[in-house]
């Protein structure tokens, strides 16, 4: 090793493999290069080394403890044997075969610490957001900083926690903070330069269409864009869900539907213009953000093939919409304990049960504040046609506050918690989206505190984190238990799967560490 060698070699042209837009279009294979694996949000991998027959032979391959982590939300991405994970204001690249650290990037001067859900990849770049709402581009190979762009202000009640989403040559970001009085938006930045391409607000400005649905509070309406979206390249449409209106639990000052909160927005990928919207919970007073990923599937509906979008909502219903037009097609219950609506009418509006708003003395409503499901990632297996959703059977006592709303100060207009004698229970449930019927379910034990999601594989296995801190494998067809591993702490992230040199791995973040699993190899 000589210095001369290094210096001359450093000038040579880089021929490194790059993450191309076409790779993102293809979806997962050996690599897992977007949050949900593919643009449709299916979280389904074609890998099938691990099957329902052999999943019982899974063993831990490595653990990486993320320094100072607690409650990790990171969804790992893997490209060419390197895994990218995040923590608050930090990104790390790990050897995905051994768990060894390759590089780390820390933004030590961020003004806000917040959970982080992961990175996005394009070309030689890794993108992530800081707690204080900066979009950061790093070199994927060594973590070197390329550019950093502030896209919102902590002073405006915003923070950053989502995993960015790459569409063509742009990086899309959303904003968190919808429970304390802010104005949500999705913004797109040029991946190469960080220049803003477009921005769409989820709450109209005063005088704009939809602002009449707000009363006085449109300025701080909320409708945060907590998570990433999904994308249909043929329709050139991005699908993005929006959060609750603010104040969360008191709607007296925001009379009306509060557009476009608790909604699904269909957005033109090039211009950022809204094509259509569908609001799941008009005038929400239970903090039932539209959270889970809108999953794009092509399935027959009433005998005719249709382009659909599936969305399991916090309000307790699984929605099926036409993703070309936004037309409401069907909504079915995903939980048994649901008492705020008797159903959804033919136009998609809930048929309300009177007297279910929060009250100063408390009002028991089902589902509870965390919803029938939340941002725990769902998955869809095209082979079985089943949609896997983490569901929570829980009722909460919702209270509203008579206090004057104060924007940007963590004021939410009330609160909600379960009765101590009536704690919730989690289930992994598989639904048939063509009928809305529940096909199987896997009940969990535990304190009803987890936030873990799912991943589906062509090997016929669904992996998910359970409410007791296990990574669990169940049979895709039946929901039957195949394998579990106790991770020693609660799980607040979703698993992924990838392969290196023909060996399939399953990885997930626990509260403080990244774990990877593969089949036991007796010959080693």
């Amino acid at each position, binding site marked *: *090793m000589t210095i001369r060698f290094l210096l001359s070699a*450093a000038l040579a042209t880089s021929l490194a493999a790059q993450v191309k837009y076409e790779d993102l279009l293809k979806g997962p294979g050996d690599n897992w290069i977007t949050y949900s694996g593919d643009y449709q949000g299916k979280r389904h991998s074609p890998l099938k080394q691990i099957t329902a027959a052999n999943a019982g032979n899974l063993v831990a391959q490595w653990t990486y403890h993320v320094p100072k982590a607690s409650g990790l939300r990171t969804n790992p991405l893997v490209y060419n044997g390197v895994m990218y994970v995040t923590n608050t204001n930090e990104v790390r690249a790990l050897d995905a075969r051994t768990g060894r650290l390759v590089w780390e990037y820390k933004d030590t001067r961020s003004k806000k610490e917040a959970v982080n859900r992961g990175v996005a990849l394009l070309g030689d770049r890794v993108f992530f957001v800081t707690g204080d709402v900066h979009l950061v581009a790093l070199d994927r*190979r060594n973590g070197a900083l390329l550019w950093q762009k502030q896209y919102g202000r902590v002073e405006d009640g915003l923070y950053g926690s989502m995993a960015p989403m790459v569409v063509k040559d742009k990086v899309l970001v959303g904003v968190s903070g919808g429970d304390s009085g802010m104005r949500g938006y999705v913004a797109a930045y040029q991946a190469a330069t960080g220049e803003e391409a477009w921005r769409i607000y989820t709450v109209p400005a005063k005088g704009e269409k939809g602002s009449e649905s707000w009363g006085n509070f449109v300025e701080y309406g909320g409708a945060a864009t907590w998570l990433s979206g999904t994308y249909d390249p043929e329709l050139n449409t991005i699908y993005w869900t929006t959060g609750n209106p603010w104040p969360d639990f008191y709607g007296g000052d925001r009379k009306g539907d509060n557009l476009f909160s608790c909604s699904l927005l269909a957005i033109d990928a090039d211009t950022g213009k809204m094509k259509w919207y569908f609001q799941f919970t008009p005038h929400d007073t239970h903090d039932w953000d539209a959270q889970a990923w809108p999953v794009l599937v092509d399935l027959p509906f009433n005998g005719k093939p249709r382009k659909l979008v599936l969305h399991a909502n916090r309000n307790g219903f699984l929605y099926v919409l036409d993703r070309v037009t936004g037309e409401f097609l069907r909504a079915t219950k995903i939980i048994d304990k649901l008492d705020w609506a008797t159903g959804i009418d033919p136009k998609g509006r809930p048929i309300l049960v009177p007297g279910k708003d929060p009250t100063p003395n408390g009002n028991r409503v089902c589902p509870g504040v965390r919803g029938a499901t939340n941002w725990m990632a769902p998955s869809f297996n095209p082979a079985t046609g089943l949609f896997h959703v983490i569901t929570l059977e829980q009722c909460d006592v919702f209270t509203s506050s008579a206090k004057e709303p104060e924007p940007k100060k963590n004021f939410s207009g009330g609160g909600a918690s379960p009765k101590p004698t009536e704690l919730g229970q989690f289930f992994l449930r598989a639904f048939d989206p063509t009928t809305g019927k529940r096909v199987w379910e896997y009940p969990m034990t535990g304190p009803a505190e987890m936030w873990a999601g799912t991943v589906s594989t062509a090997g016929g296995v669904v992996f998910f984190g359970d409410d007791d801190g296990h990574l669990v494998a169940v049979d895709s067809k039946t929901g039957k238990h195949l394998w579990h591993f106790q991770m020693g702490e609660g799980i607040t992230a979703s698993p992924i799967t990838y392969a290196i040199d023909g060996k399939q791995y399953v990885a997930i973040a626990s509260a403080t560490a990244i774990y990877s699993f593969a089949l036991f190899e007796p010959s080693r």
Partner: protein
Amino acid sequence: MRRSLAALLCFAAVPLAAQHDASKEGKPKNPAMGNPTAIASGQKLFVNSCAGCHGVKAEGGRGPNLRKRGVWHPLEDDALFTIIRKGIPGADMPASNFNEEQAWQVAAFVRALASPAIENPPPGNVQAGETTFWGKGGCSNCHRILGRGGMLGPDLSNAGATLAAEDLRESIVDPDADGFLRYKGATVVLANGTTLKGVARNRTNYSMQLQDAQGNLHMVDLSKAKQVDISDHSPMPRNYAQRLSKQEIDDLVAFLSRQSVRPFEPAEKK
């Protein structure tokens, strides 16, 4: 309500103000803080009066290492000033003969020793340093700033915001001083005859995470390696003290000290 609160605050500030000839706002201020000339004066005073115990580079000796933050970092400027002037009764730290201005200068120097360089930018010609970085120094063959430059060395886009000026200087003139464990030169010959060369970003007996000069990452299973050579050094040249003049190194440190992705906000504004 507000007025009475303000009055209370003023009252509370009086004893501090009396102590240190503080500014009229009622807060003790170090007039030397962030002032390159004053810090340089503080350094001279330090070398003459403090280095006997703390070391010429404040690396420690009979007295503690002042570049490691743990020892004194929790101290407010105010307390640092008092210790420099009056010593620590009952310990080996004696009182000094510094006047107030001198004591502030030494305090500013000590503070700068372990603070990000951007907070106390050292003297030097920034533009000349920039020219050296991209030219004669050859720094950009291995180091990057905002995407421009080489791949093998640490990224310096945020160098001023993450490293103290003295650490930057030491990295240039004595690159092996802190070990640079993540940047050891490495050559691996695989069982199939392929040779990989670059730096080991990490390694164990079983695997190596090697970055080649083109920037490609190689996750090497060492059970499949025929030969592994690890250099005792980082690939950083060890002769900059000879290749560059003292002024050129000062300029380079001054340039690197200004590399901060986020604008520096003085403490009073935070």
